[in-house]
């Protein structure tokens, strides 16, 4: 399976970033999600796609709001806002999420539980918007790369040293 065509423009969605596009020649990619969570959203009707890459669960855990989308609560809000602005209202969104792994080993993850808390926080915020992930690849101990193709709404997840699988 070829998830990545060479002629597609890969738009990297880094930590704390949001990307929204309707360009069918592009792919939104969040590379190497460890304890981070990637949220992809797609409106099949307008073919507008969006993604956010969150690092931590709650914005109130620290005062710093330089990059609000680093936090699950603000990140989800901002993603939904931006999608709506570009013609993808939230009632039409198909949401998928990936990440929240314990890549430093389960014993070390126990201390902060960031991956687990990130997933919870993302779901909670989505729920407050009346949304729920249609598919997810979360938890475990391996990092993942998440990609979303605006042309057809297909979402792929690739774990380290593994081929991509459709989510």
């Amino acid at each position, binding site marked *: 399976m070829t998830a990545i065509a060479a002629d597609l423009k890969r738009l990297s969605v880094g930590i704390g970033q949001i990307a929204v596009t309707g360009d069918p020649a592009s792919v939104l990619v969040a590379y190497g999600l460890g304890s981070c969570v990637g949220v992809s959203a797609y409106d099949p009707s307008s073919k507008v796609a969006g993604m956010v890459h969150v*690092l931590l669960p709650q914005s109130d855990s620290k005062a710093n709001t330089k990059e609000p989308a680093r936090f699950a609560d603000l990140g989800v809000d901002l993603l939904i806002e931006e999608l709506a602005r570009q013609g993808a209202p939230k009632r039409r969104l198909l949401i998928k999420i990936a990440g929240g792994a314990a890549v430093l080993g389960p014993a070390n993850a126990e201390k902060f539980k960031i991956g687990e808390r990130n997933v919870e926080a993302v779901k909670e915020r989505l729920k407050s918007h009346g949304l729920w992930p249609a598919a997810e690849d979360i938890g475990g101990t391996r990092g993942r790369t998440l990609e979303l193709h605006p042309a057809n709404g297909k979402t792929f997840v690739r774990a380290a040293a593994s081929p991509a699988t459709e989510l």
Partner: protein
Amino acid sequence: MSRSIDLMVAKLTGVAKDGALRAGRGLSGLMGQEITIHVPSVRLGTRADACDAVGGPEELVLGAYLTITGDVTGHVMLLFPEKRAFQCVDIMCGSPAGTTTEIDEMATSAVGELGNIVGSAFVNALADDVNLVLHPSTPTVVYDMAIALVQTVYAAVLSQGGEVVMIDTIFEDSIGRSAGLLIVAPDPISFGKLQELAA
């Protein structure tokens, strides 16, 4: 950035040089060749190119992660590009080059030991220089995309609030190829202690 953080970063840079030197010496012995140590960069926050030293964000890396407890708490992570890690394992086990091709029990154990030696060398240098009691934990062997590991350590520190200070040391072999990346990040709760020492 506050002045006290500035002072701490300056102090840590000096201490990190000694730590990197000792860690690099340990690594040179294990790799059977001269290893060059780049002056460690002490910085605030993550940098987009933090993973370049091991081949890029999605590069598969093998390494060891340990935590530090004691007077100062924090995180230590040593990462190698996968192929380079396998070369190290061959040298450490006295096997002909190219023997190790997958992460088996032997490779896991050897990489854990590498983490012990290099991580402890660094932590001990830090402890000697600042006269603190520091205990490195047993290493956890990690194998993943570089950015997933770096990001997770960053998140663990940032989640405690305050600034994230990361000390990066890049190791290179005699022909300038990357031989590894060592990341040391103190927990924010320890900044006070480190700032006292820097003052």
